[in-house]
């Protein structure tokens, strides 16, 4: 009986989940809260002591909520420092103002148009710079914000009206129903926000939202798990900008006049604060943050010029006492229901069984197509059952040759080990196979296809998965969410499908979670599904990483020092697991230093030193090879 079976027996024996009798309140809490919130919003303008002034304040909370939500996509979900978000807001407002005052295009038509133009603008300007990291991206966004503002001031082609801006912008007219009064604008805005929130909640709990979070947590691990990092970052910017553009449209039509003074760096930093005050990646948090940023100065209006002084202090105090924000998104303990996937089996054992690999369609194909998408043609034949072959692969870093003319052959269905002293270039070779580095020369063939120049997220969808030497998980996501990144690369549903919950999307999501459940259970971590990955002990984190790689249903699994940091008992368990994986049909390639493990399970061993292959063969031959002994222990001097 393998480790898999023994663990399967315990399937579903998670921690007791506090069985309180379900009351009406606890069963329908979400809906009730929603209904109460909706009712409060509907009643607010009609409360006797609420003047038009305070209805306008609520309108502006709405504008900033919309902007906060839009920045939250970029900053909260993906973790990109965007301190120039006002640029997109300004673009939306100016598109509306210019087209409405010159060509008299109706405001309602301009609402989607502003969003499209702002999104398109974001795509154009962010494409060349999206690869920049952290603070470098931050200054570029600030720069874009300033460029847009200064351009508006400089009045190119007499379009923007210079420092005074544009006056006389019309009001929205919804099929004969004009939106003019404060109350009308209040409802107009908050109904739009309700629609947006509906979409964002669905997006957040979908393949797209998770991919964003994977990037925020660890970009390299995300790419290596099959997330197309570049495209998802751009998608976040485009969607965020589109929403901000829509907010610009609403703002312009309410104010009837706009000027560059409304789109300063200060606005961008306020938006930044809104997202952080509410809590990164939290939708209710962004709305709450907007309420604070708008209402706080209003409440302190009597202190006139001191109110911003207090506001600055309040920001600091908030960050000291609630650095995670007021309403952070809580992921741990949310249960499978918190993943927002429809139609899951009630019984958790059924879910695990549903994820059995034969049943899932989310895996790479062995033929020429993956789910209808043609793979590049086989350039060489897979001779003698070699799954992976590197031909004379070389990588130079400046003057240093890290890997030199290396030929590696990995036979299908076997365990191949790559050993060698520290600094021999083993991990570098792995990084070339998985696409993180590109070889200076040489070729890498996988299943007869040349994969040398492909990107990591493409390579993984062909069926090569890996783990890292220094474990790279998504620390603030739960274990099951971590593993759900595995099947990501084989699913296809995008933004629209996630928002609409299309039939295909729902089925894909179900399969993703079932696959994840199966693999989590396989490595014995099912009871920890709801815990954050960073809270697991070291040994369990290793297993979690292996499970994540397995969830991509790879043909070839590459493990970089899987037993490092494990004690003897844990190493033995690991060997049992690895051997069971081979039985299941995986091919394994590992770097390993623990000779017990290497000699115990390898079918074939290649030895690397100073970037070169110095020996290869069956374990016992390598064990007695004179050159290998020299490489490890040094030459014996006479």
């Amino acid at each position, binding site marked *: 009986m393998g480790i898999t079976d023994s663990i399967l027996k315990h399937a579903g024996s998670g921690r007791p989940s506090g069985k309180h009798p379900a009351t009406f309140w606890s069963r329908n809490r979400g809906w009730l809260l929603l209904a109460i919130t909706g009712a409060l919003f509907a009643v607010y303008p009609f409360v006797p002591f609420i003047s038009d002034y305070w209805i306008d304040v609520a309108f502006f909370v709405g504008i900033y909520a919309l902007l906060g939500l839009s920045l939250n996509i970029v900053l909260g979900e993906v973790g990109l420092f965007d301190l120039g978000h006002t640029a997109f807001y300004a673009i939306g407002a100016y598109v509306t103002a210019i087209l409405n005052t010159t060509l008299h295009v109706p405001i309602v038509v301009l609402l989607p148009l502003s969003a499209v133009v702002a999104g398109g603008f974001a795509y154009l300007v962010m494409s*060349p710079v999206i690869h920049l990291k952290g603070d*470098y991206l931050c200054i570029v966004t600030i720069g874009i914000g300033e460029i847009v503002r200064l351009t508006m001031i400089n009045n190119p082609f007499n379009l923007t009206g210079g420092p005074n801006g544009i006056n006389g912008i019309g009001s929205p007219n919804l099929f004969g129903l004009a939106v003019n009064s404060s109350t009308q604008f209040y409802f107009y805005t908050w109904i739009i926000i309700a629609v947006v929130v509906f979409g964002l909640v669905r997006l957040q709990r979908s393949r797209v939202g998770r991919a964003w979070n994977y990037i925020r947590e660890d970009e390299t691990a995300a790419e290596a798990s099959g997330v197309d990092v570049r495209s998802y970052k751009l998608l976040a910017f485009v969607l965020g900008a589109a929403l901000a553009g829509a907010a610009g449209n609403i703002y312009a039509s309410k104010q009837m006049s706009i000027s560059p003074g409304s789109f300063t760096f200060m606005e961008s930093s306020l938006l930044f604060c809104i997202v952080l005050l509410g809590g990164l990646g939290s939708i209710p948090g962004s709305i709450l943050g907007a309420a604070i940023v708008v209402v706080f100065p209003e409440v302190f209006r009597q202190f006139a010029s001191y109110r911003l002084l207090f506001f600055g202090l309040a*920001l600091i105090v908030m*960050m000291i006492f609630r650095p995670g924000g007021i309403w952070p998104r809580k992921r741990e303990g949310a249960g499978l229901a918190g993943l927002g996937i429809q139609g899951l089996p009630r019984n958790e054992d059924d879910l695990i069984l549903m994820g059995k690999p034969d049943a899932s369609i989310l895996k790479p194909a062995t033929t020429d197509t993956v789910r209808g998408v043609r793979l590049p043609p086989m350039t060489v034949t897979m001779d003698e059952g070699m799954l992976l072959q590197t031909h004379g692969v070389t990588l130079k870093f400046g003057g240093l040759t890290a890997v030199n003319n290396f030929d590696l052959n990995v036979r299908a269905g076997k365990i191949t080990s790559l050993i060698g002293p520290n600094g021999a270039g083993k991990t570098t070779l792995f990084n070339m196979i998985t696409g993180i580095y590109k070889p200076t020369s040489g070729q890498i063939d996988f299943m007869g296809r040349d994969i040398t120049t492909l990107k990591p997220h493409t390579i993984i969808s062909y069926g090569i998965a890996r783990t890292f030497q220094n474990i790279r998980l998504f620390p603030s996501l739960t274990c099951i969410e971590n593993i759900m990144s595995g099947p990501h690369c084989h699913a296809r549903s995008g933004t629209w499908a996630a928002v609409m919950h299309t039939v295909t999307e729902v089925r894909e999501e179900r399969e993703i979670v079932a696959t994840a459940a199966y693999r989590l259970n396989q490595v014995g971590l099912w009871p920890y599904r709801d815990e954050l990955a960073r809270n697991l002990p070291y040994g369990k984190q290793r297993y979690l990483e292996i499970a994540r790689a397995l969830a991509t249903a790879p043909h070839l699994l590459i493990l970089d020092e899987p037993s490092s940091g494990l004690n003897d008992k844990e190493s033995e368990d690991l060997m049992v697991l690895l051997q069971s994986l081979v039985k299941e049909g995986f091919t394994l390639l590992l770097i390993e230093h623990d000779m017990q493990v290497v000699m115990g399970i390898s079918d074939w061993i290649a030895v690397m030193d100073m970037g070169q292959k110095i020996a290869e063969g069956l374990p016992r031959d390598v064990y007695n090879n004179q050159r290998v002994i020299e490489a490890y222990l040094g030459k014996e001097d006479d």
Partner: protein
Amino acid sequence: MATFVEQSINGLTIGSFYALVALGYSMVYGVMKLINFAHGDLFALGSYLGYTLLIAGSSWVTMHFGLWGGMTIAMLFAFVGVGLAGLLMERVAYRPVYPTGRLPLVVSALGMSIFLENGIMAIWGSRPQAYPAAVVPSTRFSILGLPVTSLQIVILLLSFTLMLVIWFIVEKTTFGAAIRATALDRSTATLMGIDVRVVIFFIFALGPALGGIAGVMNGMYYRAISFNMGWAYGLKAFTATILGGIGNIPGAMIGGILLGLMESLFAGYVSGAWKDVFVFVILIAVLIWRPTGLLGEKTAEKV
């Protein structure tokens, strides 16, 4: 040719303000990994402190110590005052937030910036103030046919001296090695026996204090100062820092000087209104070409 010379000297002068402020930015960033958005406002504070000292008692200081004496005292006053403000800021706004991560720190810095800007406005008013002509050295003469003022020469000499001193401290002394070690890896530096608190103390006193001196020089050069001037200089200094390669001391100096020159020459030859757009376009172009700035090191992440 005359325009070129004039704009170049002007650009060098502005560039040396940027460079001094950028130095402080870069030092703080190196050690704290914090974009100190309040840094520009400390520069403005320096301007106001120098102004206050120089107008106090109908320019008592200038009358007793002469133009240059008054200027020196004003700079020392701003140096000490802004240095203290920097220390206080670190203690109140950054130290308690530091352990919680980078994003809360950014918000804290933005909060500090808003606080300082509005604090200056609360004390000195929202209308621009002007350094009186009587306290500003303004002898005009020409060196090798170049028209310069004595103030410009002093600004350039002093800025370059200060930059050299900082460069020497950071690159050539043992304490500088401690700073660089802390910047690279704070916990390892602590394990090696470096008192990180002393390093942070030094950084937060000296970085802003340099900006304080730049603030006084800027006030004397342009005469007019306003409560919200800080953010524009802060932004330029941040741009200069990134242009040179963030956390890199020579990079910050070169970035600042380059920025000042580009801005002045563009304003002189093409258009004053579009000069800042030009600066940001250049910045973005440089980053596309060199993602970690001109002198920034390529940081290959170990996988």
